[in-house]
């Protein structure tokens, strides 16, 4: 058999596809070493076969490569690292979602809390205003009480004065009001005159009461006065000398001479 017949005998295909017997294979390898044409024909068929198979590829399962690499303890190829990185992104997105949800919940909670606190604040402000008003009222009342107390203390202090001469002035027989009464406190040392109105009717708006000191039978003006509410000692004009005191109702501002028909009360200075 010449070389060309040998090449076309089918031994090349048998050998390459692994169908040749050990004896045939050993002979073929010797022929390849001895004859360049045989080797070239073998390589030509191998390339043909490889190209034929490469056109008939079937995709193996995707995880196959990583299984092989992991069985061999090899690092994964760079190409297969990309899909492996993908699952890492998923929990990050999930985590961001949780963060966003938590932020929203916190924001809503914060807004609600702010409304609640603002309401509470407004209530406290209103309460505070009430308290301030009440406190002002109390302070104002206190001021009034203080003033009254002061005047009472003054009055009592004057009454306690041992030099004070007390002149009781009961209603005169011809008085327009029989229940009328007043008292003069006359400091015999300083000659100050204080009047306490025990009972006098309220005068007309164009009229005013006037106190008179009777000095040696003649009336001397001791000042006009208005009726004040509550207990008070009114300081009137100084009188150096008097035997009696009387009150008449005169025109507003007082008169030079008293209207004796309108005399309400009178009292003599004792001692």
């Amino acid at each position, binding site marked *: 058999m010449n070389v060309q017949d040998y090449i*076309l*005998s*089918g*031994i090349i*295909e*048998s050998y*390459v*596809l*692994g*169908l040749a*017997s050990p004896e045939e294979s050993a002979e073929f*390898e010797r022929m*390849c*070493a001895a004859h360049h044409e045989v080797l070239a024909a*073998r*390589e030509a*068929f*191998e*390339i*043909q*076969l*490889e*190209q*034929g*198979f*490469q056109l*008939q*590829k*079937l*995709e*193996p*399962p995707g995880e*196959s*490569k990583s*299984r*092989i*690499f992991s*069985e*061999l303890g*090899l*690092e994964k*190829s*760079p*190409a297969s690292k990309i899909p492996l990185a993908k699952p890492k992104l998923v929990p990050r997105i999930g985590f961001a979602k949780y963060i966003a949800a938590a932020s929203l919940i916190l924001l809503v909670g914060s807004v609600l809390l702010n409304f609640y606190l603002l309401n509470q604040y407004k209530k406290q402000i209103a309460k505070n205003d009430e308290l301030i008003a009440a406190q002002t009222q109390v302070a104002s009342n206190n001021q009034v009480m203080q003033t009254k107390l002061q005047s009472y203390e003054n009055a009592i202090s004057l009454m306690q004065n041992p030099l004070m001469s007390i002149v009781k002035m009961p209603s005169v027989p011809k008085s327009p009001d029989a229940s009328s009464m007043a008292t003069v406190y006359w400091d015999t040392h300083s000659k100050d005159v204080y009047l306490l109105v025990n009972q006098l009717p309220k005068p007309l708006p164009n009229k005013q009461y006037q106190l008179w000191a009777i000095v040696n039978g003649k009336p001397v003006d001791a000042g006009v006065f208005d009726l004040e509410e509550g207990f008070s000692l009114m300081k009137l004009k100084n009188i150096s000398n008097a035997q009696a005191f009387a009150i008449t109702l005169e025109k507003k501002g007082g008169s030079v001479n008293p209207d004796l028909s309108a005399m309400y009360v009178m009292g003599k200075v004792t001692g």
Partner: protein
Amino acid sequence: MGSTPTYNEQELTSALKAKDQQAFSYLYDHYSGSLYSIILQIVKSPEVASDVLQEVFVNIWRKIESYDPIKGRLFTWMLNISRNASIDMLRSKNYQNSQKNQEITDNVYGGNQATQTNIDGIGLSKFLGKLRPEQRVLIELAYFKGYTHDEIAQIEDIPLGTVKTRIRNALLQLREFLK
């Protein structure tokens, strides 16, 4: 991580013998499809084929030292490893048990021809369809079942010389088929 390098036959062989993982990765990306194809044509089941493919690449990595370029190209070497591993799988007890179960399932559910038909359309299985029936049987037994010529002569009850001649003639048509 630059772009994937490309290798010629000698560079790839040298890199693999030097245990270059990037070269191995390239080898897988480039050849796993072809090798999976031939494995699937022999073992028929995709699950089994996947297991065999894993075994094949593990063996390629571990036994690359034994590859001798003088005896053939790298792809030829890998193709024969794949075929041998597939036939070993066919003969394993586990595989035969699973095939019995498969036959029962096929009988119950009226056969599972879809996978068979699919494989017939590709590669060497497609080539089988081009052969005369008496040739097809022998190639089926020899290449896809892994029987020796002697075994085939006994199974088919024909002389050993006839077996050899028919197989050689069939394989000569393969060259035309691949053109």
